[in-house]
């Protein structure tokens, strides 16, 4: 049972949140110029990182805000929490 730090409300139990998967996937604007493969890359392909991972959560039973956290997908430890539109703390990223 995770405890998730909502940047708006503070630390709350996991059961108040819903999951949104990988963060920082930007929707392509010029989608008609993309090949099927390029579109599929946006649509389906995921980093699915083992280790430090930037991901989205919504505080569904709280402020209903979406936000990002960095969580280790093995230890489940959360090392950062930041608002949508903010950049992850330095040195963090889903590079792969």
């Amino acid at each position, binding site marked *: 049972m995770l405890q998730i730090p909502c940047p708006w409300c503070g630390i709350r139990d996991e059961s108040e949140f819903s999951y949104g998967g990988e963060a920082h996937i930007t929707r392509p604007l010029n*989608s008609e110029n993309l090949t099927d493969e390029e579109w599929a890359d946006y649509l389906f392909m995921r980093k699915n990182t083992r280790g430090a991972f930037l991901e989205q959560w*919504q505080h569904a039973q709280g402020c209903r805000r*979406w936000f990002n956290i960095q969580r280790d997908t093995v230890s489940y430890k959360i090392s950062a929490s930041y608002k949508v539109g903010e950049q992850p703390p330095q040195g963090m990223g889903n590079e792969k």
Partner: protein
Amino acid sequence: MKNNRLQGEGRINRNRPLNFIFNGKSYQGFEGDTLASALLANDVHLVARSWKYHRPRGILGSGAEEPNAIVQLEKGRLTVPNARATQVELYEGLQASSVNCWPGLEFDFLSINSLFSRLMPSGFYYKTFMWPKKLWMSYEHVIRKASGLGVSPELPDPDRYEKTYAHCDVLIIGAGPAGLMAALAAGKMSARVMLVDEQSEFGGSMLHSNETINGQPAQDWVSDTCEELASMQEVKLLPRSSAFGYHDYNFVTINERLTDHLPTGQKTGGRERLWKVRAKQVVLATGALERPLVFANNDRPGVMLSSAVMQYVNRYAVAVGQEIVIFTNNDSAYETAMTLLEAGLKVIAIIDNRINPGSSMADQLRSEGVKIIDQSVVVDVKGSKRINAVQVMSLQPGGDKVTGSVQTIACDLLAMSGGWSPVIHLSSQSGAKACWDDEKACFLPGVPIQHERSAGASNGCFDLKNCLSEGMLAGNEAAQQCGFEVDASIQLPVVNEVIFNRIKPLWLVPSMFKAGRGPKQFVDMQNDVAASDIMLAAREGYHSVEHVKRYTALGFGTDQGKIGNINGMAILAQSLQQNISETGTTTFRPNYTPVTIGSIAGMNLGGELFEPVRKTAMHGWHKQEGAEFENVGQWKRPWYYPRAGESMLDAVNRECLATRNSVGIIDASTLGKIIIEGKDSGEFLNRLYTNAWKKLDINKARYGFMLGEDGMVMDDGVTIRLEENKYFMHTTTGGAAPVFSWMERWLQTEWPELEVFLTSVTDHWATAAVVGPNSRKVVSAVCEGIDFDAQAFPFMSSREGLVNGIEARINRISFSGELAYEVNVPANYGLQMWESLMAAGEQYDITPYGTESMHVLRAEKGYVIVGQDTDGSVTPVDLGMDWVVSKVKDFIGRRSLYREDCVREGRKQLVGLLTLNGSDVLPEGGQIVEDPNASIPIPMIGHVTSSYYSANLGYSIAMALVKGGLSRMGETVHIPLADGKVIAAKISSSIFYDADGEKQNV
């Protein structure tokens, strides 16, 4: 009957005798007894049969580690399978019986298995029962019947189970010396403390210890300390509570047993309570378990753990034997010997594998006439249902072989100690990696990963003095970590120092037989795993400890290998010529001790507690009218309203005819409703829906499709423009919550530049759809302030007015193709609005209808239901609804519609189906084929998504998704049914009624 009760005090209450029944026979025990201690007091040693070989088994231990004494408690609705007699508190009238034996415990038919045990080593079933192939299920039947221990209840559980959440600063698990001391320390610092222990009384080993604290018996210190703790406001004491799981983020699950110790008639309130605790800091003071020794026939009744023997004598005042031999490899059994002597029992000999184990106690024992036979081992015991002698041999120098002749010593009890294993289960579950300690011959808790620390015996500290000081340190530290200051007044109690000599590990006891031959030397008694099984697994190449566990079933029992696993791993290590840390341990998994399904399920059961029921404002009315209900998501919706003597079909036919011929009314409150406001609302809808929204006039309505980004239909509904920058969206009933979240997500994460505000108003409004040619007359009769003239209030528009003086919004939209108005009022006025409409409609015989008629009416018009006519693989184009898909703007899912597969020929398309015989109604989910006589597998070209008998048309209609369906109009296809019948149908347009759409425009 022999009475083994001693004179000594113990912790039983002799003023409260309790009667109980075991295997049909009546016995008496005392308050404070466990079922095990009461049985032993009555000289009942044979209590069980083993799982595989049905060997007679007695009580081995005294607590959670007990592998043998598994009983069925009570009968009928209150029965409990697989109770451990050592943990069952005795109460008046308790009934228990042995499990897994037939016809009885004394004579058990399947003990014949013992004779064939040579044929049944570990994994024998993988090697046989394969021929003839068809007989396997019969073999399996026999195997299954022989497996299992207790019997499942046959009736539903009458008891209630509760759950509670708790937060604390310091959670202390285990109330032995270390735990009590930790609680005292943290409690004095004013930390919020929870102290939990699985036993009915706090004190742990001190409840049966001979030691003194501050010059008084340890038991006195326990009561004083408990009293002091109970007086502290921030300290919560939880006896009879097993912490069984240690999860991430210091989340600990604890099962509290509330009524199991009470007589059947006095059990009131919940039976168990599941505590879900988030602790800032955890102190694990879970103690240690004694290991048995692995020699031939070590499973016979009368062979017991040394600590258990001491506990039965001191705590329960039970003499478990009269002439006792002790077999040990460490000093702790000498304390047992002292205890036995003090109780006036006869200790004949102590067999010790060590050379001259010269503790101070040894000298004292010798002086009292106890023979100490060093450098020796017990190689076998005599007696089947109760031992009568042990066989002892000397060890060769080096200690791994026996030598000389066998010495037989008559006795009725063998107390054994193979050393101690700290209970590191919870520490391991928390993520700490256990590490092997050669000196202490045990696994110790690893470096903490979470905010926890171990203290006392669970930390490998086996003497009282150090347990107390470790406990105090742990309590101080844990509370300090939570921001509290150490209370300087706390003092360590004064106890005698005891010097222990080093243990000499003895895993597989050598004997005159070659290892693995000779009588079985049991490692895991519950699962009948012997040392030879582990050696066999190793020999066959199962080298990983996990493979050995899975191959032999070592540690898979209800005791989860609490006493057998370490011996088993050590024997495996020996077989593989590794050291124990190389072999490693299997994973310690929750639950530490088994927990009822009832406790974990809690009260979320049966009806509304399983999942909340959502009811509309008119629910009571529907119920009164005798509606049958359908679950739609969490909602209860009227399905149809049968009148006396009507079948479902009769009712639906009547409702459909009445609606199309006069007027019907349906409760549409459950549809999702979302207000979208802000200057970019139109732009947002443009991106969300497949069609365009910015040019919609105020008070006009438009139908829209929402796609997933994969281009597949996700939801649909009508949205109304209320103001320049305000829209009112309808979603499907099931879509209300997910669509709302979907919209929030896009707004917040992808398009934060849009100024849009969302409000979910599904529950704010009660909605009645009044449908049919007379609907205008009905609605206008109850509604003020609106001009209902067909031109003034045209189809697909919306007006505000008053119903009974209450603000109302009337939408002229239709899901049936009829003239129809949806009347919305604030939910609290829903019933009043509904009743007004019913009254106004009386002269037109207004007919309430449910979801089934709604489905028929919309199908007559070919309107799709998302989730029924679509399945996540259907695009709007597949539904023949390209008209709703903009070619000029981007929207969610658009790019996907142009993928290779979405534009190919031959995709499934929505069509109508008319059965050749109009009275045949196709089954929804029927598969469509071209040639029903083709050989299997028969190619399928589509399936029936919706199908009904249409009373309005006088024949059945259906909708279907068919490959290339739109270019197959008029073709005959076939729908083979499960019963062998085949129904033929013609592909048609999916609009069956009023194709030109005139009726909704009148």
